[in-house]
């Protein structure tokens, strides 16, 4: 049976001042799919994710979530956000709150769920990412990798149907990258629908169902990971991938 289409983006266009950052992007994401977006810096990947969850207004086109148009102004933004979780490059935890409060605040205040239930869920999630002992710590007492993992479960606790990850490992020291990516791999195994922007190519190859290569605000290539990494169909993708390869010097 064909999987339900969770997210549909149609002819999305985004312009800052006179500079068109996204030009006519269309994409469909089925439930349970893992989509990875790669591309050079400034090609519009972050903007694309921000347009989807409503942080940026779009100029043309539409975004549908379960066949409802969510790029419509009239919709309350908080409704969208509870369906679509997002984690940023800069692990922006709330500095004045403990780990537990960071995780539970939105569930309590936005979703108005019961405190006992939310805290229990939070503890379960913390245990899953191996940070059960940190619930009363403040963000400044944590490493970058720990913060980023907590930012993830802060989004997950709202039970989103789809998660957007924007270069979540880009500001991390190399040895922390793995612990964060492992959390995402766990989500893949659980069948979470995800849209991931990353520069970790071997990671992308391992988890993606489909890879989109963006350049200059356009989808230049859409491919399976296997195809994309071994024989990309466009020269621009080829060039891009080359920059991750080192030819032996010695």
């Amino acid at each position: 049976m064909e999987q339900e289409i969770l997210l549909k983006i149609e002819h999305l266009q985004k312009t800052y001042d006179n500079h068109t950052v996204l030009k006519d992007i269309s994409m469909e994401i089925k439930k349970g799919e893992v989509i990875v977006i790669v591309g050079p810096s400034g090609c519009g990947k972050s903007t694309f994710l921000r347009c989807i969850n409503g942080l940026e207004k779009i100029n043309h086109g539409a975004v549908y979530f379960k066949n409802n148009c969510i790029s419509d102004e009239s919709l309350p933004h908080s409704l969208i956000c509870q369906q679509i979780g997002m984690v940023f490059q800069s692990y922006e935890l709330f500095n004045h709150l403990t780990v537990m409060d960071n995780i539970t605040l939105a569930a309590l205040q936005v979703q108005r769920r019961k405190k006992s239930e939310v805290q229990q869920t939070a503890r379960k999630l913390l245990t899953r990412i191996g940070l059960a002992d940190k619930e009363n710590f403040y963000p400044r007492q944590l490493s970058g990798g720990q913060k980023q993992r907590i930012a993830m479960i802060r989004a997950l606790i709202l039970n989103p149907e789809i998660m957007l990850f924007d270069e979540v490992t880009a500001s991390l020291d190399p040895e922390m990258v793995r612990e964060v990516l492992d959390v995402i791999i766990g989500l893949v195994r659980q069948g979470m629908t995800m849209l991931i922007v990353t520069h970790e190519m071997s990671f992308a190859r391992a988890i993606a169902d489909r890879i989109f290569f963006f350049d200059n605000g356009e989808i230049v290539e859409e491919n399976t990971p296997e195809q994309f990494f071994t024989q990309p169909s466009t020269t621009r993708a080829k060039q891009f991938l080359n920059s991750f390869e080192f030819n032996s010097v010695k």
Partner: protein
Amino acid sequence: MQDLGIRVLFDGENGVRLLLGLVVTLKLSIITIIASCLLGTLMGLLMTLRNPIIHIVTRVYLEFIRIMPQLVLLFVTYFGLTRAVGINLSGFTAAVIVFILWGTAEMGDLVRSAFISIPKDQYESGTALGFSKLQLYRFIILPQALRQIIPPAMNLATRMIMTTSLVVLIGVVEMLKTGQQIIEANRYTAPSAALWIYGTIFFLYFFSCWPLTILAQHLEKKWEK
């Protein structure tokens, strides 16, 4: 000579009067600090609105208040304002007005800079989690801004307490003036009273301000990111 001087401190009501003077000092400080916090917050929020007229008005107000010595403001308010508008101000009221004007300006600037220093990412993460504008400010932005404001606001409070010593020069009877009265009443019998009285006042001021300074430093360290 010296023991004569120190005796004055314990003579009759003198010690109590000095402390009552301190009460006036603290009363003036507390009234004006609280009012400045409230009005300053309002002004700070006004300043974060990017309205050019509000911007210019608040900026000129802030700069003028900052440039003028507080003593000059006290003089102008006490003598000048009374004559210009015919309002009969007591020295105490004049002091209250000047300190609130000054405190509001400084506090407003603190509030403004605290709000603009909260990174954009904090607003965005909150929005991405579905918080409404009101919730965002209530749970995320305000608490963080407060943490930034409180230590410098306490330093401002310390400066305001210290500056209340100037009101003696517009005739308000507070700690310093009481001290001068005591010295004067005893000038025949204990000429060295000045040393002891001024010394006592020096330390009374110190112990009024120092705990605040220490607390501010402590909080700053504690909340340091």
